[in-house]
């Protein structure tokens, strides 16, 4: 495309040189503007701008604090290890922007926006126009959990970005099955697995798509080599785990504490240890946990969640889009259908309390269906007639799409906005400010990871030892407390009822300070001064 100014020399010679230069500049800008892909730019930067405006300003709690601390210190996480996230996070957390917590929150926002960009490329590949794309991806980007998980350090938006890239790579290979393209499929599959084991849920659909699309090209030696090379390159991020294990990182959640409070790390240089971590065996009891009526109830809860995520308006076009794609191209339709079913089905049948954060992969596929369905409806009406009725109906759908996206943004903004959320830092600093020298802090995910972040990332209170109760058995915890309570200050976030006869707990900021019953007056027992039954669990 030419970027030369259109004015002739004859027309411009009479104008002052400065104006000529300005006009040339303007024309150049116009030419560049024509070359720029505004749709893709908008798909990335509009959600990013919203996410930046609502981003959590500092370290966030639960998994976020664990992920941030592990990424910055080159540490190790609990199952499933997340080696890709930790590798990228180690570099990303060095960016000179805000504190380390903010940087990793920003990483989620960028990954969220990248997901929307890649989903836009998928919809473009599937011949979905601007309006339908705007509606579908606007609803996805502003859905409560996709938005919320783009504002704090979490693994999910990187997972959806890799997943969108993987689907795009598969579709591009399906269009032209070249070895270079299958290498991308392999690379993204490997990187996806090295990030989140849930990527394996997409495997059967991807294999079926490739086998049914171009079996001859798929099994050609060049394709196999290219796919394997890409896959191995992606999987190479797993090396992070044994390499960091050998380095003995200060932050390690891949192991357990024993009754003498010694940390026993799982040996990640052995295949057995590595498999234990990456296969999520620590959580195997929660998998495939429902049956019968309970399973149906969970499925219903998911459907309600899905409907709310797409602000109800996305349900009809989503179902329609799935059917349209299946009819138009059964391989693509089946692939997305199986990916949706496996991703949603696994988490529907997963007995954890925070499962509603885990449905983002299913939402991503649903958004693609919404785009396809909306486009088909617009095309269908356009085919029917060219009269004013059609134009009016089309206008109603387009305006409704904009309206619902704006409504979703406005409605959800007040729910997800974390731009003023300092609660995690405040909680962690309150614990460290009150803890006496050499104290021992026991707590669950909302207590200990943030304390460790403040210690290991910001260098606060290295004299305190913080132990996540997830990493020590209940009996060992009680043993340690009984043994140490007379030797050093012990703090805990919720008091084990079994210790109530021997110890008392005095509220001290967000935690309790434990002491032997003989050492402290009984009046300090939590709840006893209110006349209400003692509530040990906060």
């Amino acid at each position, binding site marked *: 495309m030419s970027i030369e100014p259109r004015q002739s020399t004859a027309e411009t010679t009479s104008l002052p040189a400065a104006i000529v230069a300005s006009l040339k500049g303007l024309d150049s800008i116009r030419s560049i503007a024509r070359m720029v892909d505004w749709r893709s730019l908008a798909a990335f930067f509009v959600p990013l701008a919203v996410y930046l405006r609502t981003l959590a300003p500092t370290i966030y709690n639960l998994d976020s604090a664990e992920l941030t601390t592990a990424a910055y210190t080159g540490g190790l996480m609990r199952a499933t290890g997340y080696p890709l996230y930790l590798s990228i996070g180690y570099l990303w957390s060095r960016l000179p922007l805000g504190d380390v917590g903010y940087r990793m929150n920003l990483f989620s926002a960028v990954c969220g926006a990248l997901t929307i960009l890649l989903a836009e490329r998928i919809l473009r590949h599937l011949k979905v126009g601007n309006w339908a794309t705007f509606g579908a991806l606007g609803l996805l980007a502003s859905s409560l959990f996709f938005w919320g998980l783009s504002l704090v350090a979490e693994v999910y938006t990187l997972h959806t970005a890799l997943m969108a890239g993987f689907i795009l790579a598969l579709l591009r290979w399906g269009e032209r099955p070249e070895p270079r393209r299958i290498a991308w499929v392999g690379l993204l599959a490997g990187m996806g697995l090295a990030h989140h084991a849930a990527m394996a849920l997409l495997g059967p659909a991807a294999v079926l798509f490739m086998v049914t699309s171009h079996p001859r090209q798929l099994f050609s030696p060049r394709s196999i080599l290219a796919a394997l090379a890409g896959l191995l390159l992606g999987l190479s991020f797993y090396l992070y785990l044994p390499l960091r294990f050998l380095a003995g990182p200060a932050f390690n959640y891949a192991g357990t504490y024993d009754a003498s409070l010694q940390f026993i790390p799982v040996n990640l240089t052995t295949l057995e240890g590595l498999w234990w971590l990456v296969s999520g065996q620590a959580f195997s009891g929660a998998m495939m946990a429902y049956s019968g009526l309970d399973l149906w109830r969970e499925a219903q809860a998911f459907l309600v969640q899905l409907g*709310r995520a797409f602000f*109800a308006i996305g349900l009809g076009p989503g179902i329609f889009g799935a059917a349209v794609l299946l009819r138009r191209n059964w391989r693509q339709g089946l692939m997305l259908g199986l990916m949706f079913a496996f991703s949603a089905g696994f988490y529907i049948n997963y007995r954890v309390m925070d499962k509603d954060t885990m449905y983002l992969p299913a939402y991503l596929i649903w958004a693609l269906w919404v785009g396809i369905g909306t486009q088909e409806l617009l095309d269908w009406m356009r085919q029917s007639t060219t009269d004013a*009725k059609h134009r009016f109906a089309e206008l109603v759908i387009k305006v409704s799409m904009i309206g619902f996206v704006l409504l979703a943004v406005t409605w959800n903004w007040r729910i997800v906005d974390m731009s003023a959320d300092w609660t995690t830092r405040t909680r962690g600093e309150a614990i460290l400010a009150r803890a006496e020298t050499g104290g021992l802090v026991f707590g669950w*995910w909302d207590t200990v990871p943030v304390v460790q972040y403040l210690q290991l990332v910001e260098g606060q209170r290295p004299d305190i030892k913080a132990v996540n109760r997830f990493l020590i058995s209940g009996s060992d915890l009680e043993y340690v407390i009984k043994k140490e309570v007379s030797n050093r200050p012990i703090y805990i976030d919720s008091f084990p009822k079994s210790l109530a006869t021997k110890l008392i707990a005095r509220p001290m900021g967000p935690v309790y300070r434990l002491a032997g019953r003989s050492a402290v007056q009984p009046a300090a027992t939590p709840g006893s001064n209110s006349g209400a039954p003692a509530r040990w669990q906060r």
Partner: protein
Amino acid sequence: MKNIIRILIAMGVFFSGVLLVPAMGLPRVGFNWQRYAGVYNPASLEINHPSGSPGSYFTVTGSNFSPETTVSVSANGFVLGEVDTTETGDLLFLISSTDADAGFYMIEVIGNEAAATQLILDPDAPLWTAEDEGPLFSLPAGIAQQVLFMPVIVK
């Protein structure tokens, strides 16, 4: 006419989800750490009085259940009804023993998690009036368990 029907069908498909809003509601609770902070704390039930005479009212409170779910309440395996948990996974209900027989009752709440507590209806125990407000379940007659305490002989 055919074109109008086509347009109506397209509009119907597009807007069909909106009809479900009354049933499923709109988004209300988002992602925040306070909501999941108790994820590893087991669900538990507490009762305000462990025993009372028949005719008493008891308040049962629960915590650490899945937020915004419906859980089933039963006594000695007899289903009394259902109750909803709050946004923070708490619940509260009252039990009336007006029609119930004296004896032992195991109160169970089952949802994604399960927890239990117990109460004993004893004619010699105090009569408790209702101390809270909330969903009320009545213990029916004929489901009480009679507990027989055997003497323990120690050598």
